[in-house]
């Protein structure tokens, strides 16, 4: 336990004797809090101890102990290690007080825990399903929930290769065996999911506050799920007064595949290619976060050779550059520039993808990181190409983008002062990455809580102070420049040596919990893993940056015009693969 945490613990224990206890389970580092004191403790943590950034809220189902646990990860927005709180409630009566009033970032994450675990958060103003569809029956992440084609709890499934022959479980297990229907579903004509009504009722309620003396009608417009500029199947239910937005609710889950349940069926190594599919524009950073979480649990067994650490940093930063190029290009598209800026940005991204292809074998779904290293070394010739890109071409091209776009009158008039998020609001909403830093909070996981070998490099944390869409655009240019600085240093210093000492195919991870977090291009990406010592993770949770950043969408959009909502969404830079998981 770090010194910082000891101080925190003693502070908490003196304030709340018998209420806050050190988590004594093997491999756990947090504190157990009594349900009824949770809000009180959280208030103290926020106001007196300075843990003002609630990064992650998630549930864990301890079936054997008949307990559901809610795990909170708090951080200081000035940097430092985490403070982990856990609340345990009986499975039969899972009710936990909501932290919505203290940390708005709990909004979507509590809804997710309700959706997937059936943990009721008392005091949450809008506790509806978020990822599963409206009429879904049951709570899929509970350990006793079995999906329609259920075979076994954990992979590898014994029945897949009987005597070496291919076998598909769908052929044997007819659809319907495990499907649970909500009440009244056998009369589909009468059946009407109430969640959708709740959504519209909530919207009308929000819209009402705004109307003046003159009686005017509002229009409800569903932007999405099929809409050209929602960057995927994402829906914004918007109440409009003329063209002005008076209320907005994001609706998501159209791409939901229950990534976490799949992750708990898989073995640890199985999961790496699955993480590629979260934020498919920056798959290697996802790899990095996941591997980091598992390596923390592995301890010495997960030691990474020096060269592999450098390759990891190089790959992560290249990913960041390519992601930001993409984000800038498509933000300009959302502004109505007809593909020209985005195609110029994509041209540079293609060069980076060429390097990925040469090294990892894939352009997007890289599946490259392993526990204790990376899958393979750079093939011959790639480093030279990389050097020419990083030292010559990219700096020039970034300057070019900067010159063309930053001073453009139309871009400035469309984005300046639009979708403003103040620093306090940004922290309260738990947004991360460029969105947080554009609001004037210089918080970067690479600096605040260094992982891998980021503490060796000389770079600045890019920060801008207006919190509007213009700053969220320009900060991405700044970050590309900083990433290039890191890349240049890494390429100069990269040592020779092995990249992977031993590739453990079926790894057994010691018991315990761990939270691996990295600075993904879109914000703070966290992987919460609970291991019970078997070959499969007991709990596998992804704290997806796009998902949490969307919490602030409503705040940024209300009062703006329809055209601005599109720009705000573009400036958050979401990828539906990780929003919906």
């Amino acid at each position: 336990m770090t010194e910082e945490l000891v101080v925190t613990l003693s502070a908490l224990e003196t304030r709340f004797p018998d209420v806050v206890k050190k988590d004594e389970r093997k491999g756990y580092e947090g504190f157990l809090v009594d349900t009824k004191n949770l809000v009180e403790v959280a208030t103290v943590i926020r106001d007196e101890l300075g843990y003002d950034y609630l990064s992650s809220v998630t549930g864990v189902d301890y079936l054997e102990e008949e307990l559901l646990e809610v795990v909170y990860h708090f951080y200081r927005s000035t940097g430092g290690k985490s403070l982990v709180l856990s609340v345990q409630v009986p499975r039969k009566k899972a009710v936990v007080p909501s932290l919505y009033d203290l940390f708005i970032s709990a909004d979507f994450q509590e809804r997710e825990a309700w959706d997937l675990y059936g943990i009721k958060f008392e005091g949450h103003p809008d506790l509806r399903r978020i990822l599963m569809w409206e009429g879904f029956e049951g709570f899929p992440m509970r350990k006793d929930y079995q999906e329609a084609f259920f075979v076994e709890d954990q992979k590898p499934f014994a029945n897949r290769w009987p005597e070496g022959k291919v076998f598909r479980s769908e052929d044997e297990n007819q659809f319907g065996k495990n499907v649970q229907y909500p009440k009244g579903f056998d009369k589909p004509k009468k059946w009407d999911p109430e969640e959708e009504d709740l959504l519209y009722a909530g919207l009308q309620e929000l819209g009402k506050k705004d109307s003046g003396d003159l009686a005017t009608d509002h229009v409800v417009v569903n932007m999405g799920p099929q809409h050209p500029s929602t960057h995927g199947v994402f829906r914004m239910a918007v109440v409009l007064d003329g063209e002005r937005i008076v209320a907005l609710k994001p609706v998501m889950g159209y791409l939901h595949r229950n990534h976490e349940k799949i992750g708990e069926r898989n073995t640890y190594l199985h999961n790496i290619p699955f993480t590629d599919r979260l934020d498919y524009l920056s798959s290697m950073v996802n790899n990095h976060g996941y591997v980091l979480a598992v390596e923390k649990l592995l301890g010495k067994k997960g030691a990474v050779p020096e060269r592999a650490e450098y390759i990891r940093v190089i790959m992560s930063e290249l990913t960041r550059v390519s992601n930001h190029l993409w984000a800038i290009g498509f933000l300009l598209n959302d502004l109505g520039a007809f593909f020209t800026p985005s195609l110029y940005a994509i041209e540079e991204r293609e060069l980076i993808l060429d390097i990925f292809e040469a090294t990892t074998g894939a352009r997007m779904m890289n599946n490259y990181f392993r526990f204790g290293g990376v899958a393979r070394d750079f093939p011959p010739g790639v480093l030279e190409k990389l050097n020419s890109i990083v030292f010559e071409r990219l700096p020039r091209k970034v300057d070019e983008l900067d010159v063309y776009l930053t001073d453009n009158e139309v871009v400035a008039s469309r984005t300046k002062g639009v979708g403003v998020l103040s620093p306090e609001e940004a922290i309260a909403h738990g947004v991360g990455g460029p969105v947080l830093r554009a609001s004037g909070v210089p918080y970067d996981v690479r600096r605040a809580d260094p992982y891998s070998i980021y503490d060796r490099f000389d770079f600045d944390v890019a920060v801008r102070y207006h919190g509007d869409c213009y700053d969220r655009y320009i900060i991405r240019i700044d970050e590309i420049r900083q990433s290039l600085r890191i890349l240049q240093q890494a390429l100069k210093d990269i040592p020779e040596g092995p990249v992977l000492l031993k590739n453990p195919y079926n790894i057994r991870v010691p018991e315990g919990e761990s939270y691996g977090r990295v600075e993904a291009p879109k914000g703070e990406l966290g992987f919460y893993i609970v291991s019970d010592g078997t070959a499969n993770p007991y709990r596998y949770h992804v704290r997806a940056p796009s998902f949490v950043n969307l919490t602030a969408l409503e705040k940024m959009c209300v009062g703006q015009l329809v055209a601005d909502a599109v720009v705000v969404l573009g400036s958050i830079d979401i990828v539906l693969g990780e929003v919906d998981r």
Partner: protein
Amino acid sequence: MNETLAFILEWVIKGAVLIAILLTGFAYTTYFERRFLARIQIRVGPNRAGPFGLLQPVADGIKLIFKEEVEPAEAYRFAFLLAPVMTMVPAVVIMAVIPWGDKVVMFGREIALAVTDLNVGVLYLLSIASISVYGIVLAGWSSNNKYAMMGGIRSTAQMISYELALGLSFVPPILLAGSLSMSEIIQGQQSSAWYIVYAPLAAIVCFIALLAEVNRAPFDMVEAEQELVAGYVTEYSGMKFALFFMGEYIKMAAVSAIFATMFLGGFDGPGVDTYAWLGPIYLFLKIFGLLGLMIWIRATLPRLRYDRLMAFGWKVLIPIALLNVFITAALIVGLGI
């Protein structure tokens, strides 16, 4: 053959030729736009169908004809069917008053290279141009779709703001030529200089207002893809959609022709006095250049926001255009141009 019949025949043939040129020319405007955009955007563009992709517009046309026509259940059918026609027809008939050249001698007759030469040609242009907005409004309203309706409302507001500036920007050429007839405006430019020299400000205002008139970027609020999906055409498919498309591109060519006539001397060019057939070629080149400019603008600029567009129209363009009318009038009186 009696004179009246010959006159009617000549008129019908000229009209038919013009319509034929416009309807095929439209297809190749889309081809030109796609290839030129692609060049700007470091792409190749359509190059598979036929040599250099020249058959691409044909393939597109065939595809659109065979597409299923979907009609929304709650649409107001009459207006829904009327709307594409109302956008398409004005775009074609507006070209009637544009002179393509001076008189040429054919089949022993002296034939003017214009469908007609109205003595109030400019008024005709303005009035026909404003009709086509009804098509857009009707389309938006009748298709019972919120995006389409918002597109329709936007187009009404946009049209009101820009029609005024457009009308005012036509005044300096009218004053300079002393006539509302298109052919006399061209004669005026042949005898002095192109009016873009005398009234550059009016030319700029006119070009901006014309861009807004044809709903081209950066004024494509009406069908703003990122905001309104496709605006007023959201619910249209198949040939009805193609009609809107046609209307838009023909109008692009039409407004280019109008601008060329008002400010760039129309069919005027070196040697046109001796070889009258050079007239249409010069005009075509001017239209081609203006189309290229429009496409270039589309590839370069992001879209303005709706409220800023209104503010720009009312607070900047109209005062400038108005001021320009006074300046031109004062110069004409003072210098006796």
